[in-house]
């Protein structure tokens, strides 16, 4: 069951928007990181059940961060939330092990549905 959610995005306003889209009724514990490198460190520290990851970020981009996280935890549940919706970018994210890809700007419904989907997948894994 999802309890801890990590949001990795270089835009503070984007983090705020994503947090506002996450349903409040489940009292998820929310964490955030301002670029891919901090995101990887934060992931290792808090071991979130679910991560929302941007792609276009300074220092370390989302592809690299996703790769590092999957290397550390091959069962990591990472949802890419990005403005870069090119077919090749989406395919690369899936290849690297992303659970799913959502496009920005996020909608409350799509975030809620993605969390639910991730929750189901997690409980099926046992």
């Amino acid at each position: 069951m999802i309890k801890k959610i990590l949001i990795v995005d270089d835009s503070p306003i984007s983090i705020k928007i994503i947090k506002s889209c996450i349903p409040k009724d489940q009292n998820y514990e929310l964490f955030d990181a301002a670029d891919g490198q901090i995101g990887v460190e934060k992931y290792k520290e808090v071991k979130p059940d679910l991560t929302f990851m941007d792609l276009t970020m300074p220092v370390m981009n989302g592809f690299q961060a996703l790769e590092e996280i999957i290397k550390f935890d091959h069962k990591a549940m990472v949802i890419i939330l990005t403005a870069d919706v090119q077919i090749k970018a989406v395919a690369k994210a899936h290849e690297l092990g992303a659970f799913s890809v959502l496009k920005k700007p996020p909608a409350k419904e799509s975030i809620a549905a993605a969390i639910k989907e991730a929750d189901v997948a997690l409980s099926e894994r046992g």
Partner: protein
Amino acid sequence: MLKNDTSREMITVAETDLLQEIMNIAFGRAASDLAEFIDIFVILSVPQIRLLQAIDLPKYINMELKDYNTVSVVEQNFWGKFKGSAYLVFPAGSGRRMISLFDGGARFFDSEPTHEMEKETFLEVGNILIGACIGKIAELLGDVSTYSPPRVVVEKSNRGLVADNLFDPDSLAIVLKTVFEFNEKNVSGYLFIVTKQESFGWLKNALYKYLEQFE
């Protein structure tokens, strides 16, 4: 030395951050549109927002492009509540590498002068990237844009890219800049979107309205 410090209070850090995020979404969508039209992967970077006095704008653009003696430019004006000019800039030599995007690598157009082919290529790429990017910014902020026909200049000096008299020198301009690369073609480019001070009031309101939907 640029004089933008005097005008910092015109746009707050939070507004700049939101505008940067909107530019990120808009250019991401534009890249996706281009990638659907031609088989290419566009590597995106984090957009940057600068508030400048209009008089400093030519100096700023010259500084940004100082590594290139000559550039090719697609320039397009846009109107709506969000109004201004967009400049898509490619370093010299990019056109020849980009032509193959449209002819699939085959030399179908050997009889045409290269200069014309480069112009056509820039026009197509510019039309898609500028139109989709401005269109998405306008859509996200509840506006609709109309455009002038694009103007293409191939291989000109980077000096004087933006006319000194584009804006009233005492007015302010917001510059949205993004740098991108066409992975397979080893081509990089810049998109500058310059909006006039008269759009500021509307822009601030539109940014707050945009945020309201997430409250």
